[in-house]
């Protein structure tokens, strides 16, 4: 496949709503569709060391979208950063399009995993961090994005409880907290991770500087979680 369209021009954060509109036809998107948008943008724009040309480089940073539901913001950011052609966006969800309502890593350039069924990304990210360590690649960071309600799935807690004691320093989780969990974690999301030995910070999920600071905070010897609070889904 050729990836040229996006490489011919630079896209910025302000272009993302228009890119998403190519998928949905809507000029304005509600908070639910964009809950991940700012986190994704700050990660891909300023934090992750991965490029379209280097997307198979063993030393790249990995970003695993575990919450595969509502991937328009993800596709828009990947298109803006040149991983996939902008002209793929209008086909979103159609039979001939590689862009489904849940992403498939085999079809989407730059997607590290396919997701859709909740609670799979964090365990795979744990394995990825272990694998990089075993291969002597101590530099690449592994990032996984989950939703707050996704943490209902027990598989996440298997991963959270293991990663802390295992000292997976290169593992990072960002939890998009739009208050959608039916039964919110008592004491808050960060406390759950901290109890398992993670470093944690909770920030405004729309504030790019706060996100960047939380994403780049040092956390020697421990995995790190950033809880990014956004507008409640059902507000």
């Amino acid at each position, binding site marked *: 496949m050729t990836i040229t369209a996006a490489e011919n021009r630079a896209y910025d954060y302000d272009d993302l709503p228009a890119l998403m509109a190519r998928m949905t036809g809507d000029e304005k998107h509600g908070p639910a569709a964009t809950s991940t948008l700012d986190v994704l943008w700050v990660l891909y724009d300023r934090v992750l060391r991965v490029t379209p040309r280097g997307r198979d480089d063993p030393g790249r940073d990995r970003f695993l979208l575990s919450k595969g539901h509502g991937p328009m913001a993800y596709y828009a950011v990947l298109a803006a950063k040149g991983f996939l052609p902008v002209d793929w966006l209008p086909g979103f969800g159609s039979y001939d399009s590689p862009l489904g309502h849940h992403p498939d*890593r085999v079809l989407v350039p730059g997607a590290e995993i*396919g997701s859709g069924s909740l609670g799979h990304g964090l*365990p795979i990210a744990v*394995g990825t961090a272990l*694998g*990089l360590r*075993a*291969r002597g690649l101590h530099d690449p960071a592994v990032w996984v994005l989950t939703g707050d309600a996704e943490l209902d799935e*027990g598989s996440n807690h298997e991963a959270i409880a293991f990663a802390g004691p295992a000292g997976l320093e290169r593992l990072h989780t960002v939890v998009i907290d739009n208050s959608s969990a039916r039964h919110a974690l008592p004491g808050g999301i960060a406390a759950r991770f901290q109890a398992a030995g993670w470093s944690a910070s909770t920030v405004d999920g729309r504030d790019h500087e706060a996100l960047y600071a939380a994403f780049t905070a040092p956390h020697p010897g421990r995995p790190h979680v950033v809880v990014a609070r956004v507008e409640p889904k059902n507000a």
Partner: protein
Amino acid sequence: MDTMRDRFAPVVSRMLDEDDRIAVVLAEIGADGFREAGRRHPDRVINVGIREQLLVGAAAGLALTGLRPVVHTFASFLVERPFEQVKLDLGHQDVGAVLVSAAASFDWPSGGHTHMAPGDVALLDTLDGWTVHVPGHPDEAETLLHHAVTGDDKVYVRLSVQSNRQGRVIDGKRFLTVREGLRGVVVAVGPMLDAVLAATEGLDVTVLYATTVRPFDTAGLRRATRAAGTDVVLVEPYLAGTSAGEVNRALSDIPHRVLGLGVARRELRRYGTVEEHVAAHGLEARGLRERIGRFVDTGRPVTV
């Protein structure tokens, strides 16, 4: 005689020494056997604790970084409990792993139904692209483990305490012709061979020995039916009839009959010994003889 599982840790420990692509992933069960190897290769012997969803998910992550994960626990906790992880984290992510199970259908009968997995191979049959090895002897287990770690595909190795008296030379692909006859073909899978040979003594049937059941050796079965006719009996150490569909596909253009023998679906709710369970499912020589004899007697073999 030692068991297949006795061979597993020493064999894979040597693989860890020789190939830095290999990583072992455990969920507590079997961890003792890898203590030494874990000291030599702390980053490639991983025990996630009693967490089977993480066991398979982490294996997928390891595979995504280019390692070859060898994942081990009891069959019920390797294939059944984390089945969606097997389906999605390996299959859908398009990565491979070697899943090596122990305890099989009823290796620990006094442990009861929770530790029995006669449905493991049938469950994997709902997925695409799995190679399934069912060794019938510790030597064969060793050979098949070596086949399994080569490559990047999805491989299941089903270890059991049930064993034939002697190992045979197997190639990790094809069925072996052990006996030739004219009145039917009996496919004996893994540890069922000794009982099948005793049961079919003097019956004039061909006996094929299968230690790799997926992909199914369609060509080998068809070849055997040329002389022996198309009455086919499967004797499998897991759920009865698991491979009946494979036989039907192999012979879809020829009139044929299939009898699928194996472990019954009905939950026994019995403890006891392996031998007692073998007998309860009619898989000892006498029970097999009766059912195979009746089947070939009523058949009208069609020669191809």
